Every structure is written in C-alpha cells, then in structure tokens.
C-alpha cells in the first residue's frame, strides 16, 4: 500500500502547485470582469430592444450558451489570428506567436461567461418588481435614471447568487485554458505529472487546491450576499 501514494512527493507537488493558483485566479477574475461588462452591455441592448443589435445579442446569448468552453477557446485561438490576418490585409501573419495564450484564454472565457451573465442579468432585471420602475418614472426620473438608480441596484442583489455561481464555474473553467498552452494550475499539474510519471498524487493535490479555492470564494460570496440583502429581509 505504501507505494500507492507517495506522501512526501504529494506534499512537494502541493507546494509547487500553490504558485500557480494566482494564475488561475487572475484568469478567472479578469474574465469575470470583462464578462460582466459584456453581459451588462448585451442585457441592456436586449432590454432596450435596440434593432439589429438586440437580435444579434440574443443570437450571441443562445450560441454562447450552447457551445462548450473548449470549442469557444479553440475558435478564438484559431479564429482571432485569422481575423487579424484578414483585417491587416495579410501583414500580421502568424498571430499565434504574437499574442500571448493568456489573451486568447481571457477572451475565450469572457465570451463564454458573457453569454451566461447576460442571461443572469436579464432575469434579475425582469424580476425586479415593475412598480419600482413606474414609481421612479412617476417622480420624474428619466428611464435611464430610473434604471440605473432604482432597478439596477436591486437587480444586482438578485443576480448575486447566480453571479457567484458563475464565478465559481469560471474558476473551474480556467482549467480548460491549458488546452491552448496556458500554464495555469491544471496545466502545471499536467507537466509535473508527466515529468514524474506519477498521476494520483499530482491530481489529488490539484483537486484539493481547486476545492479550497472554491470553498473560500463560496463562503466569501455567502457573506457578501447576507450583507447585500439588507433590504430584502423582513425584520418586523
């Protein structure tokens, strides 16, 4: 049994892998940021029913949620250099080498999460009571003021649980970035395991690291939700 798991090796690997957690988190946080901006924009375009853009946004949300993350990453990885090539009239060749894989990864993850977030935001905005908007309009605010000051803050609180879920999914989703040569936690794990020809220890250590990160963020989000929902509780 002793040689099934080499504990000292596992511990050593664990120490090495911790160094890659920031890469994973950086990927997740930056993608989440850009995806939120994208999701908000898409939601707004659909909410205002802007012609053409609105339909395009709906199309994006449907396609974005139907494609596996890996395919989105691949399409960005192979499509973006081609797009650059065409746009530059053949001057920027070989974009793979000129753009860091991290950029592809962030872009791909952003496009993927953006579609989900757009839908989350839309549902949240829809579930804010219609009377809130009416009341804001009735005191003389413009529809943009009403939306920004009254509807959006309430929608944000409603969206928070789903957003945190999306972020937790994104942390795990970053593991796919190794497929386009990004050296994050899982990519590093693959290199270490094949160098040492030991898999169990490495992947257990990796799993534990992801698990810990997930649990930390889950707890943090729970605390945030409790704080943000001050106006939802009925405390009579």
């Amino acid at each position, binding site marked *: 049994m002793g040689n099934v798991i080499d504990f000292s090796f596992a511990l050593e690997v664990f120490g090495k892998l911790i160094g890659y957690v920031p890469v994973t988190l950086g990927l997740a946080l930056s993608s989440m940021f850009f995806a939120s901006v994208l999701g908000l924009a898409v939601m707004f375009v659909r909410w205002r029913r802007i012609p053409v853009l609105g339909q395009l946004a709906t199309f994006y949300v449907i396609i974005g949620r139907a494609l596996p993350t890996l395919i989105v990453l691949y399409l960005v990885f192979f499509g973006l250099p081609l797009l650059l090539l065409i746009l530059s009239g053949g001057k920027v060749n070989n974009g793979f080498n000129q753009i860091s894989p991290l950029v592809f990864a962030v872009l791909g993850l952003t496009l993927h999460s953006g579609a989900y977030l757009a839908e989350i935001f839309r549902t949240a905005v829809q579930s804010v*009571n219609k*009377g*809130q908007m*009416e*009341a*804001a*309009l*009735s*005191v*003389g*605010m*413009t529809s943009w*003021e009403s939306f920004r*000051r*009254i509807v959006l*803050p*309430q929608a944000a*609180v409603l969206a928070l649980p789903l957003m945190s879920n999306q972020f937790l999914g994104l942390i795990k989703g970053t593991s796919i970035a190794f497929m386009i040569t990004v050296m994050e936690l899982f990519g590093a794990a693959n290199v270490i395991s094949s160098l040492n020809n030991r898999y169990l220890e490495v992947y257990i250590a990796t799993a534990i690291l992801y698990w810990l990160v997930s649990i930390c963020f889950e707890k943090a989000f729970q605390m945030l939700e409790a704080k943000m929902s*001050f*106006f*939802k*509780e*009925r*405390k*009579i």
Partner: protein
Amino acid sequence: MIALKNIQKSYGDNQVLRGIDCTIPTGSVTVIIGPSGSGKTTLLRGINFLERADKGEIILDDMQVDVEKATKKEIHALRQRTAMVFQSYNLFQNKTALENIMEGLVVVKKLTQAQAKEKAEVYLEKVGLVEKGSFYPTQLSGGQQQRIGIARALALDPKVILFDEPTSALDPELVGEVLDTMKRAAEEVKCTMLVVTHEIAFARDVADQMIFMEGGNIVEEGRPREMIQAPQEERTRKFLSRFTLQQAGIC
C-alpha cells in the same frame, strides 16, 4: 388646473376609455369611483403616461400635450410636474424611508443632498414618521409604507398627485392612518389631488368633486355629498347603494 379632453384607450378590441373629459381645479380634491374594470386606474396611469392612451389631450396649467403625438420630452416634463401614490406603495426597496423622499429631490429637482435631506425630513414629519426615516420599506407596515409614498409625492411639489387606490392593498386596520394622512395633505398642503378609491366616506368628507365611471365613460360627476345623497343616474345609485349598504353593515 389639470384638464383631460377626449381621452381614449383600447386594448385590442376592448375599449377601456371612451372619450373622457374632465377638469380638476387647482387645490381641489377629485375622487373617481366606479366598479373594477371601469377604466379609472387606466385613466389615472394615462395622465403620467405609465400607460399611453391612444387619443386625447392632457392640459396641465400652461402645458398642453397631445397624447397621440407626445414626445419623450413632453412625457418627461409631464412626469416631473405630477406625482403618483401607488396601490402597492412601490417604495424604492433599496432606499430607506428618508432616501425614498430624497431620491426625486436630488435626481429630478437637482437639490443638494443637504437641502434634499432637510426637505425630506419636513415631509417625514408631516406624515408622522420622523422616527422611521432610517428604516427600509420591508421593515415598515403597509400603512407606514403608504404614508412614506405620500410624503415622497408631496415633497416634489407637484401640480397634481395621482392616487391609485392607495388603501386597497392595506389591512383594514391600517386604512385609517393613510386616509388621515391624505386628508391632512388636502387641508394643510392644499395640493391638487386626483384619487381613485373605494372609500366613499373619504370622498364625502374630503373631496370637492366626485366622478363616477363605468365602462370607460364618465356616468356622472358632481359634489360628493349631493351625489351620494341624490344620485342623478340609475347606475350611480346602484353602485353607491352597494357601498352604503356595505358600510352600514360594517359599522
């Protein structure tokens, strides 16, 4: 003065407003009564364009708005000059009671935070809820929420306040405090009020004018006491008798 001219509105084939004409003099209280589905709420919501009527004209002092052709700017201007008190209160859930009153003052009237706060506190006192200023809507009773809703409307100094069945969602024991607040608003602030309600007693005691609507038409209008005691139209009599009977039964 606010006047409505030939306001019409249909949902598909269903015509809910069949050409409404009426005038509400400045500083007066007008009560609209009528069975549900008579179009009274639609009429009220048509005035500040929460629902857009199909045809007609709205005159608010020197402003004249053709409903059919109203621009965004006109609608906005109209909303800035009016205020509404909702059946389901619709207090901003993410703001405290005080902030609810301040919101319009800061965003629409462009007062500074300090000025808005000062003014909001005055109106908080008028509705007798000074000690609840820092409470969120969900921490208040329905009656308290509605009184804040009235303060929010009053603070904007609107030309007219539209009351959309302000007591219908309340538990019976909370109706009195809201009606008292409205009565005080009418007597002390002297604001122009257009009230859709089922509270006949309130109409009798406070209103200057009463309108009875049915099937999208104004059936009868006049002084409340006279209308209640001697309605001219058969349909008005029928509707009112149900109420007086009901109230007699309760009292």
